[in-house]
């Protein structure tokens, strides 16, 4: 099987790190009393794209479009109803060190120190290393994320921003094929967020990682990404388009807001999101599934925030 080379643009595109091959996810509709009802609720269907080696790809969509579900499927936490995930020419179905996840909720082991939270990942990735090698490698990533001095603190003593730094260090230190970031800055206050975004970018550039991020923050997506994938509203969400971000790096927030290209992209994405939030009720009628009523329709303010 030659799945690692997508049929389009074979000559120009760099090697694909991960192929999301016509993935659909649907849940059985439950009656009010919890028994299985008739029919299924399609979260998204036929999602197909590839993540190129070394790129930063961000997916944007309204809440309920299934972007976190898609990320869980890519990580192996969840199974797709149709289609599959292909990494290095092989289909993957279980979680693994080649697809490390940065969690929205940090998911640090609270009984371990910061250092040990990172070290446990290094040890898993390199079982043959000596203790000294493991410690050195761990320290390198701790330092890159600006955690020097907090090595022996438990996560409970740290702010959200510091916790997510540990989460990012833990994910990068095993050198995964693709990094999956599930709304990594959603629980961090706005001022700290910018600093950690910069650190994430520095880390991504130093280790040449491939990153897939899910977010609903438009500015964050433009600042960090090479390409941005836009999802329509669920149910029956689809991948609408993938847009290129043609802004040279290194990017800074101050430069960005003065660039016409930035404003063009921002308006494009916002228009897309707003038009899809207006169209949402109509989409529900055509689908006609009772569970569609549960999908929230975010306000314009929420989109622009």
């Amino acid at each position, binding site marked *: 099987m030659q799945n690692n080379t997508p049929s389009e643009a074979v000559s120009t595109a760099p090697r694909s790190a991960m192929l999301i091959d016509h993935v659909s996810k649907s849940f059985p509709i439950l009656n009010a009393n919890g028994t299985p009802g008739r029919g299924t609720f399609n979260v998204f269907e036929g999602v197909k794209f590839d993540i190129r080696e070394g790129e930063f790809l961000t997916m944007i969509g309204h809440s309920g479009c299934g972007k976190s579900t898609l990320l869980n499927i890519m990580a192996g936490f969840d199974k797709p109803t149709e289609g599959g995930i292909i990494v290095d020419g092989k289909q993957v179905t279980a979680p693994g060190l080649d697809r490390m996840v940065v969690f929205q909720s940090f998911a640090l082991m609270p*009984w371990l120190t910061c250092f040990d939270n990172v070290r446990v990942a290094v040890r898993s990735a390199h079982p043959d290393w000596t203790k000294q090698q493991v410690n050195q490698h761990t320290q390198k990533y701790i330092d890159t994320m600006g955690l020097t001095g907090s090595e022996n603190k438990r996560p*409970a003593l740290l702010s959200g921003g510091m916790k997510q730094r540990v989460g990012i260090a833990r994910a990068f230190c095993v050198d995964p094929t693709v990094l999956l970031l599930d709304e990594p800055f959603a629980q961090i206050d706005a001022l700290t967020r910018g600093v950690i975004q910069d650190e994430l970018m520095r880390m991504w550039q130093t280790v040449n990682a491939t990153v897939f991020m899910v977010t609903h923050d438009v500015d964050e997506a433009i600042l960090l990404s090479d390409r941005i994938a836009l999802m329509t509203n669920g149910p029956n969400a689809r991948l609408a388009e993938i847009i290129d971000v043609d802004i040279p790096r290194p990017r800074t927030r101050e430069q960005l807001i003065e660039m016409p290209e930035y404003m063009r992209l921002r308006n494009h994405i916002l228009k897309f999101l707003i038009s899809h939030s207006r169209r949402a009720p109509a989409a529900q009628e055509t689908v006609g599934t009772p569970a569609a009523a549960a999908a929230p329709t975010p306000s314009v303010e929420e989109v622009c925030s």
Partner: protein
Amino acid sequence: MPDWIVRLNVAPKLISLSLLGVMLLGWHLATARDAFVQGNLSDTELMTMEFNGDIIRDENDNYIFNPAKISGIPGPMAVAKKCREEFSHPFHTNGTNDHGIAHLVWYTISRFSIGFLAAAFVGIFVGVMIGLSPLLLQSINPFLQVLKPISPLAWMPLLLYTVQKPQLTAILVVFMAAIWPTIANTAFGVSNIREDYLRVASLLQFNWFRRLFKVILPGAAPAIVAGLRISFGSALVAVVPAEMLLGELGVGYLTWIEWNNLDIAGVLFAILVVGVVGYAMDLLFNRAARGVGYAE
């Protein structure tokens, strides 16, 4: 305020001490008896009382109450005297039933420790096994719910009949008191471990063993320790009546021995010893439990 007052946290200690003083004084006043007043008692009545040993003559030939024949609750001075007497020979052994107080404390602590540690070990093991499988937890939970409220002493006749040895029965009563809260809490803690931690474990390709010892047990540790704490308390409560009913030497049985001797000061002394031993064991447990817990 001077620095040392703040540092030593003097205020609560001062209040505790004065409360103790007030209680002792109240106890003393409530139990103190007036000196014997002859009043208008006839010589015949006095002779009868002297013959019964209620009153004796002191060195000046005056009648006083016989201090050896006190009725009612003894005062703090009598209990203090008893304490001094017991602690003057803590390691003596006179026959089968008269062992020094240090021996008795040791018997109780070792009996309690064996039963509690065995229950902790078995309880954590069974709890983890049940907690790992939601199916098993749901099917075993009804049994746990029925077994948990049974008083450990209710098992005693059955245990005595089965194992025949009172020494072993006393340990098993402690075991029965301690096992159920540990099983229930461990199973609860293991089954409610946060999904995130398990996801990290599967990302990092932990095998079953590493997953259990690096994620599940540390994650469930606060719940397990909470279960052990409940077990510890109920085992400590169960050990005293178990000793009494089985006639096994220990601080619990001491109360009963002193009651048989009609030595109420001795009974009060034994109660105090039970309290102090329980407090010391609890301190030890807390020392051991510290460091296992974590804050989210």
